[in-house]
């Protein structure tokens, strides 16, 4: 019910919204919760397990009950707290976990079955048969219990991630936070003030408290205005700091104002990483309920929430409101209600000696022990020395005291300390380096003490940062004492709720203790207390106090469970912002990319690079047709392939040769200038890491190539070797992968193509196999390498990348004129298979130089990385699986990569496993499939027929073991 008076809403601006399909009105400044309450809605959701009707319980992000889903379709957001959801025109929200409606929910039957559904019920009941665990029980339980759901469709909403840096991060804009920010800002420090709320003030916006002779919210707005005018201050409203991490880094989730988020291109939320030299935590405190029978009835809420709705939103949460508490807060609530003209049905103060200043029915030393009214509170039952009493009330404000919001101080392993004075846990100083707690979250509760505490924390932080501390007077405000008589649980019949969101009652906690789950962490897992989206913000301390009472241990001995980030829920979409579609990973494109795509090439990913798989020609409908044609084209005429993606590392210096001798298994210091050598690089454990060619461009100048996908790994390895193993060697290296566009020109007519683009024509004799040198192409300085990965006469020609696109077009045009053309990765793979050349399919991390038949390359004369380890027993000899070529010889002609190899007549069981197939392809040159694989003692078994078995496909093929080099074994063609 809306009541008169100003509040902090704008009655001039009416907003239309829908809840569960019905249309309602609210005002600018409302939250969904205040607007629903103003419209008289009491039941806004159903509980997790028992489907009990539930109403709004708080005014903040700790809200356990009023969770709603906003929007429809892909972008719908579940589990949003109505208490922090700003009302906007056209908002559409739905209640959750209720069917067909929140007023009549068929699963409400669970509530009647409650005697059977206590903690541990599922563990004990759904045990047999085992096969039902995942297929039957879990889906049924998940249907019956739960909160909101995602749409399961990809959402189009934009999210954002950002970084911010500052001297002082102030978390919370209540009296303590505002004071801290003001002091630091006036000192000239870079300040970020992050606050969950839309407007500053914290509880000042919810209470009738004066600061500096002004209403508290006016003072807060004035401070905010001053801060907003300062260049060194960044105000971050609607921002929840959700975690404290190493090195002064904090995670924060900003929810954009509805009108901003609605703009085209604007994000819905932004996940911030804020790096601060110092931080002040002024997160305030959370009011805790008292457990008594049926304390979850709609209409029962925290006393602070009652004040908040009345004072800020001018909504009466009931017509006959009772208040029950154990501090002066209960009296303040009654006072605010009276001031607003709301009938106070009773003021119940659990403290025996309490006095009352107001003309309301007053019940000192009594406690509320039960509540009636299923879909809304109708009456409460009191108990005390004077006996029991029943009072008609449609709203009850309860307060069991306040828990300092210590969460962030515990994110780096710290535990809070028990403070008996306030019956609450307070942060341990220094628990998060650089962070100070101030105000209510540090256990000081009067407004005056909070203001002073905030100013003090900022001054200390400024001093530590070496900044001058300005004189900033602390304004005057109320300075009442906090007089609490701890009260956690009122005994009685019926279920008394502790955790509203996960439906955990006092009985569940007692049962956990009875079943010997006595540690607070065990109790939590047994009962699921504190494991819902609210992470037990209103229930953790109450639950551990009940546990402490049950076990007979004290509260400090029982301790808290572990506080972990995030403080409030964070959508995965916010954490992964920017990662959709092309944002998922960088794309590296070669200079020939456009031309390849234009020719219809199917692009495949190699690391981050995109490379053409094959180039479909007219009439080709299957990749094999294109691949076969391209292979024949290279064997018979000439082909052009972009090989720019191979890693290129420029290595220079007097010790460059020695360095290469060390990192390669074979020798490079003896390589002549103008020559290229194939090299094998081993890991320290003696297995092959990578292979490639290295050219000697000058006496102290080498150019190493790596495989495409291993370029980063090799670079890292070289840095490690240089920086850590041989820092005394004088050499320098850098990646030049992207500097050069490089194309393989291969085939019997390769030289003809080159001579169409080179300034000076070349002849076979001038550029023998494995030579290299400088060339000119229309005045552009290029490099030519006589190397071949196809087994044909082959060259690789490199030009600065800016000329890559033009050169590719020209080479292809020349090649096509000679009956050739471009070829892709598929053909490249078949060509190298025919030649028995290895790729990372063969040097996959478990193979040695011996295994691949290159044991002889490991230089015996000197030390190199991996050499010693490669000589270990077990890494050499007949028992090793050795590289072989395979060809099908039986009726079945199929070879499958990944299949295993067995002796011809052996049973295909793992005990008889003799090896496996690594690469296969159809060879148009031989007219059948060919493969490479590793076979036990394979080099001694050439000519033997073995059996390939693929369990996945269920295929078996008889194969003849061959030399890996099946095409042109003496290499005459590539030397041509």
């Amino acid at each position, binding site marked *: 019910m809306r009541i008169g008076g100003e509040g902090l809403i704008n009655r001039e601006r009416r907003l239309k919204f829908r809840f569960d399909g019905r249309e309602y009105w609210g005002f600018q400044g409302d939250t969904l919760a205040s607007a629903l309450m103003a419209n008289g809605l009491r039941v806004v959701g159903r509980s997790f397990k028992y489907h009990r009707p539930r109403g709004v319980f708080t005014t903040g992000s700790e809200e356990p009950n009023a969770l709603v889903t906003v929007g429809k379709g892909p972008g719908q957001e579940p589990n949003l707290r109505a208490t922090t959801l700003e009302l906007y025109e056209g908002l559409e929200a739905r209640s959750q976990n209720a069917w067909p409606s929140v007023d009549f929910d068929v699963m409400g039957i669970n509530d009647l079955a409650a005697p059977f559904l206590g903690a541990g019920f599922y563990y004990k009941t759904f045990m047999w048969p085992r096969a039902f665990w995942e297929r039957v029980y879990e889906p049924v339980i998940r249907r019956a219990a739960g909160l909101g759901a995602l749409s399961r469709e990809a959402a189009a909403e934009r999210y*954002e991630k*950002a*970084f*911010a*840096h500052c001297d002082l991060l102030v978390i919370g804009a209540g009296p303590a936070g505002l004071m801290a920010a003001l002091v630091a800002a006036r000192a000239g420090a*870079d300040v970020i003030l992050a606050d969950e709320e839309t407007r500053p003030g914290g509880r000042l916006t919810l209470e009738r408290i004066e600061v500096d002779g002004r209403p508290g919210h006016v003072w807060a707005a004035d401070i905010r205005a001053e801060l907003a005018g300062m260049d060194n201050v960044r105000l971050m409203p609607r921002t929840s700091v959700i975690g404290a991490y190493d090195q002064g880094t904090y995670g924060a989730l900003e929810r*954009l104002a509805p009108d*901003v988020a609605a*703009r*085209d*291109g*604007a*994000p819905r939320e932004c996940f911030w*990483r804020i*790096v601060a030299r110092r931080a002040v935590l002024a997160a305030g405190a959370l009011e805790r309920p008292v457990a008594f029978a049926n304390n979850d009835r709609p209409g029962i809420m925290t006393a602070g929430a009652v004040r908040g709705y009345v004072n800020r939103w001018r909504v009466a949460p009931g017509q006959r409101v009772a208040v029950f508490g154990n501090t002066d807060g209960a009296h303040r609530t009654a006072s605010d209600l009276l001031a607003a003209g709301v009938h106070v049905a009773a003021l119940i103060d659990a403290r025996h000696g309490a006095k009352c200043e107001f003309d309301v029915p007053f019940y000192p030393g009594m406690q509320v022990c039960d509540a009636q009214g299923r879909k809304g509170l109708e009456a409460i039952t009191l108990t005390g020395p004077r006996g029991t009493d029943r009072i008609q009330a449609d709203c009850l404000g309860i307060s069991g005291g306040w828990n300092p919001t210590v969460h962030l101080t515990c994110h780096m392993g710290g535990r809070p300390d028990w403070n008996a004075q306030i019956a609450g846990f307070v942060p341990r100083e220094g628990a998060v380096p650089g962070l100070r707690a101030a105000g209510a979250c540090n256990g000081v509760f009067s407004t005056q003490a909070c203001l002073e505490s905030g100013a003090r924390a900022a001054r200390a932080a400024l001093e530590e940062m070496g900044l001058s501390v300005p004189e900033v007077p602390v304004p005057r405000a109320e300075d009442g004492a906090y007089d609490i008589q701890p009260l956690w649980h009122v005994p009685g019949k019926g279920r008394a709720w502790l955790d509203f969101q996960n439906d955990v009652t006092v009985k569940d906690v007692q049962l956990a203790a009875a079943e010997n789950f006595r540690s607070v962490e065990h109790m939590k897992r047994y009962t699921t207390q504190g494991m819902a989206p609210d992470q037990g913000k209103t229930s953790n301390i109450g639950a551990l106090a009940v546990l402490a009472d049950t076990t007979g241990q004290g509260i400090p001995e029982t301790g808290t469970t572990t506080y972990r980030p995030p403080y409030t829920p964070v959508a995965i979409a916010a954490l992964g912002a*920017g990662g959709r579609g*092309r*944002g998922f*990973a*960088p*794309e*590296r*494109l*070669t*200079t020939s990319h456009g031309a390849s795509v234009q020719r219809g090439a199917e692009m495949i990913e190699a690391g*981050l*690079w995109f490379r053409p798989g094959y180039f479909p020609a007219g009439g080709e409908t299957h990749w094999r047709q294109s691949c076969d044609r391209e292979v024949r084209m290279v064997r018979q005429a000439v082909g052009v392939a972009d090989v720019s993606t191979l890693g290129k590392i*420029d290595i*220079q210096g*007097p010790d460059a040769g020695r360095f290469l001798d060390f990192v390669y298994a074979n020798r490079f210091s003896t390589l002549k200038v103008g020559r290229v050598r194939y090299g094998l690089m081993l890991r320290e454990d003696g297995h092959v890491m990578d292979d490639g060619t290295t050219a000697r461009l000058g006496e102290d100048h080498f150019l190493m190539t790596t495989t495409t996908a291993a370029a980063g790994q090799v670079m890292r390895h070289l840095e490690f070797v240089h920086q850590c193993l041989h820092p005394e060697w*004088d*050499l*320098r*290296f*850098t*990646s*030049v*992968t*992207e*500097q*050069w566009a490089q194309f393989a020109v291969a085939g019997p007519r390769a030289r003809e193509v080159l*001579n*169409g*683009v*080179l*300034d000076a*024509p070349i002849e076979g004799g001038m550029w023998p196999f494995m030579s290299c040198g400088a060339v000119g*192409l*229309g005045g*552009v300085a290029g490099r030519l390498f006589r190397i071949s990965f196809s087994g044909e006469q082959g060259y690789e020609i490199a*030009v*600065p*990348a*800016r*000329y*890559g*696109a*033009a*050169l590719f077009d*020209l080479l292809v045009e020349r090649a096509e004129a000679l009956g050739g053309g471009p070829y892709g990765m598929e053909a490249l793979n078949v060509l190298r298979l025919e030649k028995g050349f290895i790729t990372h399919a063969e040097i996959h991390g478990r193979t040695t130089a011996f295994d691949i038949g290159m044991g002889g390359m490991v230089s015996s004369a000197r030390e190199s990385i991996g050499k010693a380890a490669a000589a270990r027993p077990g890494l050499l000899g007949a028992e090793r699986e050795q590289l072989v070529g395979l060809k099908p010889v039986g009726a079945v002609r199929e070879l499958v990569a990944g299949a295993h190899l067995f002796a011809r007549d052996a049973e295909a069981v793992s005990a008889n496993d003799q090896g496996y197939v690594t690469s296969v392809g159809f060879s148009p040159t031989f007219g059948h499939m060919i493969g490479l694989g590793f076979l036990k003692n394979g080099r001694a078994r050439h000519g033997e027929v073995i059996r390939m078995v693929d369990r996945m496909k269920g295929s078996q093929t008889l194969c003849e073991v061959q030399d890996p080099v099946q095409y042109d074994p003496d290499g005459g063609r590539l030397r041509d």
Partner: protein
Amino acid sequence: MTRTEGGCVIELRAKSPCDGLLPLSIGGVTLSEAAPGAMTCLMPYKGQAAALSGALEVACGIAAPAPGHSTVSDGVRILWFGRETLLLIGPEPAPELAQHAAVVDHSDAWAVVRLEGPGAVDVLARLVPVDLRESAFAPGATARSELRHMQAAITRLSADAFEIMVFRGMARTLVHDLRDVMESVAARAGR
């Protein structure tokens, strides 16, 4: 193209890394491709850092910058470019430099773009973890860092202008990522 005796004359047309992708202007922030001229990676040999700096002063009139900084004079810039590495931008490197350092041509290795306008810093703060406050990253400051998922070099040219370099082959992703956050920053600002 004409064939001459003993060889042929061809003309290779140069293409810039961001060809066809830029310029771009969203919400008052512009993204354009820079044409920095020659870029040369200079890595001083053992004990040669000071000698290299001296040779640079002789050759280009500016000394080597300290880590995290760049030096600028007429048409020449030198960026600190990582551990024991400098990037000379503008002129072709003088041959003498090779006495003190490994000299490697990087002119074609990088996509170089310029992001400028009010809000440029907000755009960058959505992709780059570097502290971009002017007190920490003044004009002339440079960092090898990351831009979303890419290795990048970021240099502040003025209060509202930054130069960003990523590997040439990643140009399209660079523009994609920057456009993405430029749109969101513009929408936030209501521009």
